[in-house]
């Protein structure tokens, strides 16, 4: 409507101008100037109004205005009283109507014009009526029809151009809208890189407004310094491309107005506008995409890491099991077998071999696992490898993990692998404290090839394997030392003391790696009795074993000096107190028993009380003060307790391992022990076994168990004893003999004399014994109605006493006894001595 309205306004202005012209140029007086000026002013006013409101005018308002114009023209004609010029104006009005309106409406307007013109003609110069009507109606009609034909063609052309322009504008606007609404920045550059287009997304993206960006070189605005040359190169290359439309995609980095960088993807193409090349491009901020991708990658890495961690955790727990197994008294060989199976499983390898290095840098196959175990004994065919030799040797030399494909036969770690089609090998060194302790090699059979990832995994496994092996080795070494030490500390053989029977057992804990500090000892006293020791040193392993060693030697030394038990223990306490580090302590029970005596002397340093079992099997724990363990106080008071012990009864000494069971009270354990003893077999050895069977869980002891038993045999009319052929045995023999003789009813003198005579016989036996260190002599006695007969038997050959010192023994024997018989034989010599207790001896 705007166009029509403005055209109408021009028409009105033109009309007013024409009217005013007639007033400016010379004209007849008949023209009424004032009225014409009024009409021209009205026309101008209308023109102004419709110009101003051109955008809001409605079609019917235009028709009213146009009709008003016709009336004004008619009035102007009337006042001018001229009819010649005005047809032209009418004609233009009609043309307007034709041009802008539909035919019917245009005809209505023309009819109105014709009426107006006719009225003016009739009023101004009345010619003949016919002429006037013809003029009034015909002139504008014919002129209108004629010209309208012409204008109609013109109008089509105008409308086309207008539509094109409008379409172009709309297209531009749409493009603008599309570009502005686009999520991506749109930028166009000319051949010099000057920005010519910059959409709202570009404004958002870069932070520069279109007015700031357009006309500025792109490179200096948003291209980072280091990429500016590249930008120029790319732009120039694009511009110079022969194709008009060439599209390229780049990953770029750009700068925002605030200086921050962001990754972007640019899709650029060359366009030509009026022969001038431009570069246009969409730029998309991909930092989000990059971030997401990074997140995704991080997530993937995390997932991979977690999977790896889980795999490693599984591996570690597997290895841990093996380490646990190592603690449960397992040998290195056992562990290697397990490790190798484990490694094979983790890597899904077809074969695996562990080679261990020795001090001379030789690698020997220690364990091998093949797909089919029937393929020979692994390791047996293999000669030790020197470090640097073969695949495994190179791994040991370089200390680097290695991956080899299609290995040569010489590179196979185990010749048994030669029967397989080995595709690849991985070898990793086993390192312990920076030394190569061995090499772990896994092999894959075709078609599987190991990858670098397998290498990493094996490296992880190797760490564990090395650790487990080292652990096992250290353990084996220490355990061996500790066991050897401990075994050396336990008496190998019980002393054979007449009148006393001794039995002992030592059972190491099944689940413990280290030997404990439990120990016992049996020491023959100079007076023919036995010192019994049962002790428990706190701690385990070598430290405990060495403490036991010191206690044992010290106790033997003190005991042999003949101190009473409490003094012996006090001395030991000083030893532990002064020597032991780290508040080491030990419980100990020391007991001295003389054969034939109805008592025991004992002292207790914090140890479980001894169990006394009488001849009928009833047991009770001996009561007495239990003082603190050794090493707790510098000067504790220890007291020797004397308890009655009838001949035929037994004493049971033990360590807490025998009475302690998890979840049970110690008192229950002690009651159990007493109960088991009472139901037990009579023989001491069998009793020991019975106690272990009934009190130690079938799964093995949880702690070390030591038992020491002694029985005080009743004195009878007969005795028989064996002694080592050593001078030191003489005093024991005499002590034993005195007790027996007293039991047999001999008086003091008789006891002294018979003992002296037997001593002489025994001295002879010792001197003649021969047969090396293990030589022994035997003494047996019989009391038949106060007739004492004693035989001393050795395995040496009798040498006839010479005169002098050597012969004095025989004379003594003869003087002191009723009869003396020496019976040499190839097996040895027997000296038989007889004496009636009532006689004074010395038959002469």
């Amino acid at each position: 409507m705007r166009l029509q309205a403005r055209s109408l306004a021009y028409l009105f202005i033109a009309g007013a101008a024409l009217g005013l012209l007639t007033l400016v140029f010379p004209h007849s007086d008949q023209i009424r100037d004032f009225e014409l000026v009024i009409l021209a002013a009205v026309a101008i006013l209308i023109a102004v109004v419709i110009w101003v409101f051109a955008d809001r005018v409605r079609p019917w308002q235009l028709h009213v205005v146009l009709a008003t114009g016709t009336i004004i023209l008619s009035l102007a004609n009337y006042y001018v009283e001229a009819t010649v010029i005005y047809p032209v104006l009418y004609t233009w009005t009609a043309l307007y109507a034709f041009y802008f309106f539909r035919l019917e409406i245009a005809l209505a307007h023309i009819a109105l014009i014709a009426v107006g013109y006719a009225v003016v003609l009739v009023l101004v110069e009345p010619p003949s009526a016919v002429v006037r009507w013809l003029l009034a109606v015909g002139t504008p009609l014919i002129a209108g029809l004629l010209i309208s034909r012409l204008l109609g063609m013109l109008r089509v052309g105008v409308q086309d151009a207008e539509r094109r322009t409008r379409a172009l504008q709309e297209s531009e606007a749409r493009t603008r809208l599309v570009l502005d609404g686009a999520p991506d920045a749109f930028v166009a550059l000319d051949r010099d890189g000057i920005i010519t287009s910059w959409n709202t997304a570009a404004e958002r993206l870069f932070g520069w407004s279109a007015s700031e960006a357009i006309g500025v070189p792109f490179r200096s605005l948003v291209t980072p310094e280091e990429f500016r040359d590249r930008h120029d190169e790319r732009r120039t290359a694009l511009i110079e491309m022969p194709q008009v439309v060439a599209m390229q995609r780049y990953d770029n980095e750009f700068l925002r107005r605030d200086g921050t960088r962001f990754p972007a993807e640019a899709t650029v193409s060359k366009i030509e506008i009026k022969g001038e090349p431009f570069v246009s491009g969409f730029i998309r901020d991909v930092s989000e995409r990059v971030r997401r991708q990074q997140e995704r990658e991080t997530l993937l890495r995390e997932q991979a890491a977690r999977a790896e961690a889980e795999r490693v955790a599984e591996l570690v727990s597997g290895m841990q099991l093996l380490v646990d197994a190592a603690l449960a008294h397992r040998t290195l060989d056992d562990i290697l077998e397990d490790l190798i199976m484990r490694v094979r499983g983790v890597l899904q390898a077809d074969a695996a071999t562990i080679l261990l290095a020795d001090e001379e840098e030789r690698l020997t196959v220690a364990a091998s696992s093949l797909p089919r175990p029937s393929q020979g004994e692994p390791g047996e065919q293999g000669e030790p490898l020197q470090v640097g030799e073969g695949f495994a040797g190179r791994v040991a030399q370089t200390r680097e993990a290695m991956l080899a494909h299609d290995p040569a036969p010489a590179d196979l770690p185990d010749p048994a692998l030669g029967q397989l089609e080995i595709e690849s090998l991985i070898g990793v060194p086993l390192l312990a404290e920076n030394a190569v302790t061995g090499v772990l090699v896994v092999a894959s059979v075709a078609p599987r090839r190991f990858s670098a990832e397998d290498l990493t995994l094996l490296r992880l496994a190797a760490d564990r394997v090395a650790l487990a092996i080292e652990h096992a080795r250290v353990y084996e070494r220490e355990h061996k030392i500790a066991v050897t030490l401990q075994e050396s500390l336990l008496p190998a053989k019980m002393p054979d003391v007449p009148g006393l029977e001794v039995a002992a057992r030592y059972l190491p804990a099944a689940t413990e790696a280290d030997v404990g500090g439990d120990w016992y000892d049996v020491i023959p006293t100079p007076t023919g009795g036995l010192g019994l020791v049962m002790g428990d040193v706190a701690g385990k392993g070598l430290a405990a074993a060495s403490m036991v060693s010191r206690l044992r030697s010290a106790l033997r030394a003190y005991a042999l000096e003949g101190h009473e038990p409490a003094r012996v223990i006090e001395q030991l306490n000083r030893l532990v107190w002064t020597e032991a580090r780290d508040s080491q302590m030990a419980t100990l029970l020391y007991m001295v028993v003389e054969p034939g005596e109805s008592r025991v002397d004992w002292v207790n340093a914090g140890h479980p009380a001894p169990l006394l079992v009488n001849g009928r099997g009833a047991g009770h724990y001996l009561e007495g003060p239990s003082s603190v363990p050794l090493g707790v106080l510098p000067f504790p008071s220890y007291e020797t307790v004397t308890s009655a012990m009838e001949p035929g009864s037994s004493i049971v000494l033990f360590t807490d391992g025998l009475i302690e069971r998890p979840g049970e009270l110690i008192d229950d354990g002690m009651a159990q022990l007493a109960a088991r003893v009472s139901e037990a077999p009579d023989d001491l050895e069998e009793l020991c076994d019975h106690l272990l069977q009934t009190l130690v869980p079938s799964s093995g002891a949880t702690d070390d168990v030591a038992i020491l038993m002694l029985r005080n045999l009743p004195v009878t009319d007969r005795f028989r004893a064996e002694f080592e052929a050593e001078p030191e045995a003489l005093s024991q023999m005499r002590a034993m003999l005195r007790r027996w003789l007293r039991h047999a009813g001999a008086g003091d003198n008789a006891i002294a004399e018979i003992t002296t005579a037997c001593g002489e016989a025994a001295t002879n036996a010792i001197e003649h014994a021969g047969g090396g260190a293990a030589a022994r002599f035997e003494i047996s006695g019989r009391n038949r109605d106060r007739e004492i007969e004693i035989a001393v038997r050795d395995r040496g050959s009798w040498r006839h006493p010479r005169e002098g010192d050597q012969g004095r023994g025989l004379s003594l024997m003869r003087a002191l006894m009723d009869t003396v018989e020496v019976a040499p034989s190839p097996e040895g010599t027997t000296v038989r001595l007889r004496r009636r207790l009532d006689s004074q001896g010395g038959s002469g």
Partner: protein
Amino acid sequence: MKDGLVGLEIKELEGVVVAHVTGELDIAGAPHAGERIAEAVPTSARGLVVDMSELDFIDSSGVAMLFGLVRRLSSRRQELRVVAPKGKPVARVLEIVEFERAAPICPDVERALEAID
């Protein structure tokens, strides 16, 4: 001082060495005890008293020890006296081997010292 089961205390009284032997004197302790006693007697000493009043046991080895001391001392013209109260096992053994033919046996240390001039 103990040596095996033998206790030995040696002192000097008025130029005479007195060796107090306790315990049991047998082949395990006698040879060594004899050595120690002999070494304890300087050439300047007038004599030696071996006090066996508290000795519980003696056998032929102990007797041999005494005869050995007698031999040593007589070569240096030093006198030996043995203290062994009568009725005790030790005196009985010395009696059987007729030790008194080699050196006098006295009932106590005082008499033994007196007997050495």
